[in-house]
């Protein structure tokens, strides 16, 4: 590689002089998610440790579940869940078949405490689970506990097990706490300390705690320099763990947690089974990972690509033969399956149990993919006409036309239904169709002034919509920094988007731009917010069905200040989904 090329490559990831000034986010305290916990434990102890567990769900906030991690309280019930997981993991780690390779030493006598061996184990494991080197005081506490338990139980491994269990549910493990250097820079912001930056990077890119390589870099001060950061970020982007991280991000962004509650009427869609739903979710994840990470192609082309992956459970829905397991598949040119919107995951998830829904699909497109907010229906809206079971509406186009008869409904439905109607080529389970109740389906539609005749046209319109890449950037920054972007972040997001464009809309490049930016690496002072000053709730409600209103609840947004001393901010909010 020539010198010029190498220099360009090195400079490509550096914080650009074009980056607008931005104070960064407040330092945050986030609770670890189920998948982050599982990934971290798997990285520390290996995949043979079986972990069938699920922590309580987070609240979707400003479009992302991950934002809800900074708004989490821990109840006794939640602690019980964490403890059950920790107990199971600890027992497996010290089990006779695993202890020889998961514990790096052998006690002199299995029936007695062994401080030296316990120290070795907890220093090594504690560093990875705490995401930083344990202080002498912390390490001593764990070793003392292990020794005491071993003496009482007359079993070294039982002592390790009990202490490991307590470590796995300690706040240092369950909460991701961001702290910063003491001194603010001249802009008045503070750089995240090395361990906090290591965690922010790792949970963003890998959806897991930092590994030895990243922690070592943090300990050596490499994250303090651009060159050092560049080296670590390049290694992280090249790691297979990037796939875990981006799967988690896109699953969150696309709202695929809704799959957990997805059900179809088996009498209407007998061919849509639990296996279909699971594979539909996986198909989209595989498509995304392959397109954006393995092939490093243009993000916008995700919405027009005919390349995907196929499984035996999905193939009947697509009316094609299948091979065993997951295999690469390219839909033919005249196929209606072009882009993510036409995959079963989107059209089946964004539909009713027994029928399709242009409104739900249009709304999902607006909110999940373009980051726009569809206002809620007026409180006095009459759903009677829409829900009228009168079958004289042959197609969904006729049914949702009712929306447009009432000016109170028409305002919002004009921004959801026209693009949702193009997706009427697919029934509520995602199967292609050209007619509904004997009437030919009209798939003409429009997205922000661009007219099209079918789903392929919709995909192209979406591809060319400027909100598409800017929404991804918005969500990535929110996800990576742990909270929704603020209006004052707009110049920053615009900068990220411009860099994304320059890089040909390639995901690894925009990830590099974000993590290398000053805004990502810096935090501002946490602002105290009283309950009465709580921000207005962001509301998202289903257009076609009213959702029960959840009364405002007070939640603690634990945010760390520039120093390790933490302040708290109380916010009020409404459950969005």
């Amino acid at each position, binding site marked *: 590689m020539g010198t010029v090329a190498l220099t360009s490559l090195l400079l490509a990831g550096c914080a650009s002089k074009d980056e607008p000034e931005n104070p960064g986010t407040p330092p945050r305290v986030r609770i670890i998610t189920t998948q982050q916990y599982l990934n971290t434990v798997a990285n520390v102890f290996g995949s043979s440790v079986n972990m069938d567990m699920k922590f309580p769900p987070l609240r979707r906030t400003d479009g992302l579940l991950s934002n809800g991690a900074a708004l989490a309280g821990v109840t006794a019930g939640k602690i019980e869940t964490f403890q059950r997981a920790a107990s199971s993991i600890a027992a497996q780690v010290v089990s006779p078949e695993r202890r020889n390779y998961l514990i790096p030493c052998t006690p002199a006598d299995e029936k007695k405490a062994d401080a030296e061996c316990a120290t070795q184990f907890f220093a090594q494991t504690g560093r990875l689970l705490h995401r930083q080197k344990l202080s002498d005081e912390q390490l001593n506490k764990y070793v003392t506990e292990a020794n005491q338990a071993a003496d009482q139980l007359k079993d070294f491994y039982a002592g390790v097990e009990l202490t490991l269990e307590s470590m796995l549910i300690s706040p240092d493990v369950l909460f991701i706490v961001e702290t910063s250097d003491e001194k603010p820079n001249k802009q008045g912001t503070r750089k995240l300390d090395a361990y906090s930056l290591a965690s922010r990077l790792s949970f963003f890119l890998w959806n897991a705690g930092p590994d030895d390589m990243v922690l070592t870099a943090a300990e050596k001060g490499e994250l303090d320099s651009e060159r050092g950061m560049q080296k670590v970020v390049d290694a992280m982007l090249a790691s297979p763990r990037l796939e875990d991280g981006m799967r988690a991000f896109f699953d969150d962004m696309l709202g695929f947690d809704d799959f957990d509650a997805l059900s179809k009427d088996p009498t209407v869609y007998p061919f849509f089974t639990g296996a279909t739903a699971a594979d539909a979710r996986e198909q989209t994840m595989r498509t995304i990972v392959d397109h954006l990470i393995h092939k490093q192609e243009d993000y916008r082309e995700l919405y027009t690509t005919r390349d995907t992956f196929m499984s035996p459970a999905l193939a009947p829905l697509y009316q094609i033969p299948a091979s065993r397991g997951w295999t690469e598949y390219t839909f033919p040119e005249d196929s209606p399956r072009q882009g993510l919107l036409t995959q079963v995951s989107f059209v089946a998830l964004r539909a009713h149990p027994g029928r399709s829904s242009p409104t739900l699909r249009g709304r999902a497109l607006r909110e999940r993919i373009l980051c726009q907010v569809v206002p809620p229906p007026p409180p006095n809206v009459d759903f009677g006409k829409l829900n009228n079971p009168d079958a004289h509406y042959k197609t969904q186009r006729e049914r949702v036309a009712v929306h447009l008869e009432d000016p109170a409904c028409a305002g919002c439905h004009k921004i959801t239904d026209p693009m949702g109607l193009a997706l009427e080529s697919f029934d509520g389970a995602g199967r292609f169709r050209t007619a509904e109740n004997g009437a030919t389906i009209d798939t003409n539609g429009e997205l922000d002034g661009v007219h099209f005749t079918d789903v*392929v046209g919709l995909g192209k319109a979406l591809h060319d919509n400027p909100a598409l890449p800017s929404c991804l950037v918005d969500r990535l920054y929110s996800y990576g920094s742990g909270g929704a972007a603020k209006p004052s972040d707009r110049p920053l997001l615009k900068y990220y988007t411009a860099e994304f464009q320059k890089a040909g809309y390639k995901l690894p490049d925009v990830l590099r731009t974000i993590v290398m930016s000053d805004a990502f690496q810096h935090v501002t002072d946490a602002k105290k917010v009283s309950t009465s000053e709580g921000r207005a709730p962001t509301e998202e409600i289903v257009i076609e069905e009213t959702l029960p209103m959840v009364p405002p609840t007070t939640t603690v947004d634990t945010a760390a200040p520039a120093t390790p001393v933490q302040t708290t901010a109380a916010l009020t909010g409404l459950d969005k989904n």
Partner: protein
Amino acid sequence: MKSNAVRTMSIAGSLLAASVTVALGTASAQPAPLQEGGGALKDRRIGYVLTHKYWAVYETEGAKTECPQGFNDGPREQFKKLFDDGKKRSIVDAQLKREGEQWHPTTAPESFVFKEAQGNVSYGLNLDGKIGPEDFTSPEGEKGIDNQLYRVIGCIGHYRTMGTINHFENLFMRSYDDARIVIELTEVDDLKNDDSVVVTTYRGSDGLLQDATGEGFIPGGTQRVDLRWGKEYVSKLKGKIVDGVLITEAADRVMLPWGVTFGTSGYHVFRGFELKLKLDPEAAEGLMAGFVDVKAFNHHLNTSWSTHHHSYGQLSSPSQYKAMMRLADGYPDPKTGQNTAISSAVKVKFTQVYVQQPEQKELVSKQ
């Protein structure tokens, strides 16, 4: 069309002609309508996988018509009758003796009365093309139905609805992929009426796709042909489709996998095998019929199901064998003249699948 239009234009109308040409050109540039799949019938082929199979038993309410004398005894009842006289016997003389008769059956008369199914109505096909005195009439009124196996099994609980064989043969067939029966119709021009099609039977190797109701099966799955068991399981039949019903000519010998639990390699061989199936793009339903070899049938029964299974359905293997030999109506032994096979019918349901042939690897010696 475009050139003809242009030729007829006068010079004065050339401007108009140009606009017409443009209009036609625009019309022809319209993209083809989007389409998916192209249907179950592809390249004149359509495949189906077996999801239900029941030895055909014509059942009336309470079995009053076909079993007025009640059902047959099974091993437990017979054992009790044979050995419950208070005499002390060794295991060899009692239990093992009776077990041994299962594996070495004879046609010698026994003390038990075998209850044959009564009446003259039965499911089945006219396998010999004749209408004989022993033949049945189908529930639809077709005469000449050959199904002497029904006479034998019609009053054995095992084979009836809710019977053990009836239930478990289907449960295991669905659960294990190594006894998958697949048929493929080729040279099909029309699934409603086609005077010549070819039907090939295969052994498949993939799971069935059960639907969300838990009771049906999803069409459109894929079955890969399994040739690991040899080409014995591949048979070809000539057939035709009349008003949506596939009717095949008889094939001399068709071997079908009939294993029960995992790892069992049971099979049945049908002589004079025929199919009569109502077809649609998603499913096929009807009968498969032929003559089954009595000894092979009995061997399959004993190697697939133990005596305790037989007991659940009151099926006495030695008694069933005697009845089968007595009622056997086909394929006489050239030496003795004794019929060796019995006419039978199986009620079947298939679901549409795509049949995938194994990759043909060229032999090294041919390279």
